[in-house]
């Protein structure tokens, strides 16, 4: 089943705010072996000009998971999640995510193509604080593999 290209441009309602916890950043940094003190020690982060511990660059993906789910579960778009593979991923940062951030995601379907029996869905998720300050833009391309 192919994806419906008429949904290109569809924007989803903002997600419930994601509260970025200091321990979550420490846990994520530990899981990827990131030992820089700015990920773990608020004082080290403050020395770099941040209000609290700094998240590693790919941490925003965790924040976007609920937003991506919104799209993948949108019956109109027609994604079969059991056939989804991660194609591309990109982050463009206004500033790093830090502990204490309350982040809201707004997702838009940027592109849908069907090629060679596979569907390609590109989403852009803008992550901003609840006050509207932009933090990072996140692009994901999901590949929905066709039936073999």
């Amino acid at each position, binding site marked *: 089943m192919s994806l419906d290209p008429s949904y290109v441009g569809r924007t989803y309602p903002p997600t419930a705010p994601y509260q970025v916890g200091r321990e979550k950043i420490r846990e994520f940094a*530990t899981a*990827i*072996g990131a030992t820089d003190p*700015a990920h773990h020690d608020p004082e080290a982060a403050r020395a*770099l000009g941040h209000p609290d511990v*700094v998240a*590693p660059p790919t941490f925003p993906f965790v924040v976007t998971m609920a937003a991506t789910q919104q799209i993948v579960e949108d019956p109109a778009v027609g994604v079969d999640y059991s056939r989804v593979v*991660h*194609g591309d*991923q990109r982050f463009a940062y206004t500033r790093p995510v830090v502990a204490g951030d309350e982040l809201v995601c707004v997702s838009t379907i940027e592109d849908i193509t069907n090629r060679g029996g596979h569907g390609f869905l590109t989403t852009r998720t803008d992550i901003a604080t609840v006050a509207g300050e932009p933090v990072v833009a996140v692009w994901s391309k999901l590949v929905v593999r066709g039936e073999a």
Partner: protein
Amino acid sequence: MELPARTFRVTRADLVRYAGASGDFNPIHWSDRIATKVGLPGVIAHGMFTMALVGRALAEWAGAPDAVVDYGVRFTRPVVVPDDDEGTEIEVTAVVREVTEDGLTRLDITATCLGDKVLSQARATVRTSR
């Protein structure tokens, strides 16, 4: 200019830890039974775990944990992680493409596992002066 290569060892324990930390509990990252059922050779690493390791290398090359301003990859091949103490290895290198006047460095990244490229179109921009 080529940046010094970094090698990251990846074991099953790392995948379990990353699953918990990221909230991505897709069973292809912890169950051989499910992974082989969907046609994979076995349990594979989360693409985002590979991307995170490369992100670490970027920050370490730039010399600051908050240096990465733009970072994108395409996942081309799965990183298969055997259920033993050694796991597997991901090797990361990067070439400097451009250094801008406002202190940004653009990098082209290569990440391989057992000699195969696991990422393509992997590019980053890092801030190299504050």
